[in-house]
Structure formats: C-alpha cells, structure tokens
C-alpha cells in the first residue's frame, strides 16, 4: 500500500508539472482529480465540523441554532430556480454579518493600530529595547513615518498630484514599489520552497536518489 501511495502521489505530481510543457490530457486528469477531491474534502470537513459539530450537537442546549440551520437550508434553495430568490435572505445575513464585523475590526486593526504604530519616538523604535540614539534607529523611524505618510498621500485621489502634494505622492510611490518588490521576492521564495518540497519528494521519497 505504501508503494502504491508513493507511485500515485508521484503520478499526480508529475501530471501537474507536465503543464510546464503544455496543456495536456495528463494535466487535465490531475486537475480534475484535484477539483473533485478538494470539493469533497471541504464538503466532508464542513459537514462534520459545522453542521454536525455546531448544529446537531448543540441545538438541544441552544434552540436558536435552528434559525441558523433554516438560513442554511434557504441558501441551498439556490439550486431550485423557481424559488432561488429566497437564497438572498441568508446571503443578506452573511453580507450584513461580514460588514458589521469588518467595520469594527478593520477600523481597530488596520487603521487605529497602524496609525499608533507609525507614531514613533525618534530615538528608539522600542522602549523595551532601551534608549537608543544611534543614527540607524533615527533613520529607520523616519523611514517608517515618511513612508507611511507619503504612501497615504499617493492613495489620496481627491486632490490633483501637483506641487508639494505631487512631490509627496512621488515619494509615496517609491515606498510602494519597494513594498511590491519585497512582497514579490517573498512570494517567489515561498513558491520555491514548495517546489523544493515536491522535488525532494520525487527525487528522495519516490526515486530514492537523495538520502
């Protein structure tokens, strides 16, 4: 069974990698298996965790869970075209809940916390690390303040980017390009790490060429 599992994994891995040559039946077969298995995986996981774990196990102690189950049932009516419009009710619930939750969470974490973290003392980036009056700490703190402020100026489109405002926006785009470059590099490294993992499987676990 262990051998079969290794060969099956290798077959599917090479099937996906074969797309690098061109779109072909082996890739399409692997892709179709991936789609079906993924859908099945999430179906089973959510069935046991949310429908059974949350609703079925809890409705005796909390009858209000029936409201959630009813909304969930109404969502499935989307599959019946004649009365599919009822599925807007649970959809409205999801959209309302997400809006209410995100309104406060983003206000707190993405705006208030980030603004607070940007207002830094020049002589030390952290009181915990002790007093630091080195040029490195001062420049680093200034980079954070100037970069965040000018980046926000760049995103402000209600005023034409001319004069001093335009100059600040131009500095802002420099910082944003550095951010994109760094994020790009980071993404490349994470994808490479996954690729190394798959190569390690093919050459090590499957073919036994590396110890």
């Amino acid at each position, binding site marked *: 069974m262990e051998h079969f*599992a290794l060969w099956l994994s290798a077959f599917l891995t090479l099937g996906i990698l074969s797309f690098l040559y061109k779109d072909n039946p082996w890739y*399409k*077969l*692997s892709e179709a*298996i991936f789609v*079906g*298995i*993924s*859908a*099945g995986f999430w*179906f*089973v*996981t959510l069935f*046991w965790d949310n*429908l059974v774990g*949350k609703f079925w196990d*809890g409705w005796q102690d909390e009858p*209000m*869970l029936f409201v*959630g189950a009813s*909304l*969930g049932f109404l969502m499935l009516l*989307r*599959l019946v075209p004649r009365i599919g419009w009822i599925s*807007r009710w*649970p959809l*409205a*619930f*999801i959209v*309302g*809940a997400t*809006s*209410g939750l*995100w*309104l*406060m969470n*983003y*206000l707190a*974490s*993405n705006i208030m916390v980030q603004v607070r973290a940007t207002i830094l003392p020049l002589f030390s980036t952290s009181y915990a690390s002790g007093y630091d009056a080195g040029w490195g700490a001062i420049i*680093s703190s200034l*980079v*954070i*303040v100037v*970069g965040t402020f000018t*980046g926000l100026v760049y995103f402000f489109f209600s005023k034409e980017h001319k004069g001093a405002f335009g100059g600040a926006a131009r500095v802002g*785009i420099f910082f*944003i*390009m*550095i*951010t994109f*470059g*760094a994020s*790009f590099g980071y993404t*490349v*490294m994470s*994808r490479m790490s996954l*690729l190394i*993992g*798959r190569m390690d499987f093919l050459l090590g676990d499957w073919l036994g060429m590396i110890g």
Partner: protein
Amino acid sequence: MRREIPLLITAIVGIGFVIQYFIPHWPFSKMSDWFSDWFSIVGACAIILGALNLMKVSVEKTYRRKEDWGYAAVIIASFLLMTIIGIAEGRGFRNPGTSFDWLYNYVYIPLSATMFAILAFFVASASYRAFRARNFEATLLLIAAFFVMIGRVPVGHTLSSFMPVGWQLSDLASWVMNYPQTAGQRAIMIGIGLGIVSTSLRIILGLERAHIGGGK
C-alpha cells in the same frame, strides 16, 4: 418583499455586530454568539452549495457528452469517493490511518502543493518581463526583490560573510522588510481599512445593494 427583507436582515445583523463591539454584555453578547454560530452554519451551507453546484454542472456536462466530458466525470468520481469515505468514517474522519486521511495525504496534499509550486515558474517568467529597470520605480522594485530573495538563502549569507555584521545581505534583507516595506505595507493597509469601513457602512445603510441583485 424580495428586496426589503434582505436589506432589513443586512442592516439588523450589521448594526448588531457593531453594537456588540461597544457593549460586549448581555443581551448584545448573546446576540453576537448567535450570529457567529449562524454564520458558521450558513457559511458551511454556502460551501456545500458550491460543491453541489459543481456536481450539477459536471453531471450535465457528462450527460450531454459536451467537450471534455470525461474530465467532468473524473470530477464527479473524485468528489463522490472523498465524500462517501469521509461521511462513512464518521466524526473521526481525520484520524491518522483512516481512508480519508490516506486520500488527504497521498492525493490532496501532493496535488495542492504542486499546483502552487508550478507558480514559481510563472513568477520567474513574469519577473523576467517586470524586472527590466526601465525607470527609477522599476529599479526600486528590482533592488527590493533582489535583496529579499538573496538575503533569505544560505548563498546570500555566504557571499556577504566578509562584510561586517549588520551590513551583510541577510541584514539588509531584514532592514528592507522591517522598515521601507513595512511603511509601504502600512499605507496600503490603512487605505484598505478606510475602503472596507466605508463600503461596510454603505452596505449596512442599504446604499450598496449589489449582493441582493442591485437596483433601487
């Protein structure tokens, strides 16, 4: 009725979540617990609806023998295999040694990891086009990406090992990530936050109606 009830549900639930943030006590705390539980159940049903819809489309494609119907049949077979095994195995479906766990480890994991791994090649080809230093902004992007990539691998450390500590490639990569990258990221995050706050307000107040089909 088809528009008013969804708008009312959106407003009540949205305002409920906002109020419980400021008053985390009964009855708002209880209401928040209910909404969170309902959210999990409805969210699960939405994913299940997506899976069932995938089946509906695939069955129709297979039944009518449309182009590439064979792959649609493979999707149906894979879905049924994973679902039947997972349901039949009961609550312990994730336990090591189960058939569901076997399918997860030897089919799902290799496929998903390889699917994301091949993006490395497409990213490389995209970077070849994007990383031509045509102007100052593109050069900044190139330099930042270069330092982050070279500073995170052992060869980068070896190449700059003669430099004083604090000026080696790995140190420069960390500085780029911690300061200029953080500053730009923070500006983007604040911008996204402001956008989400204003859009959420519009949705709760009923000004944004795309989720119920749009219109007045």
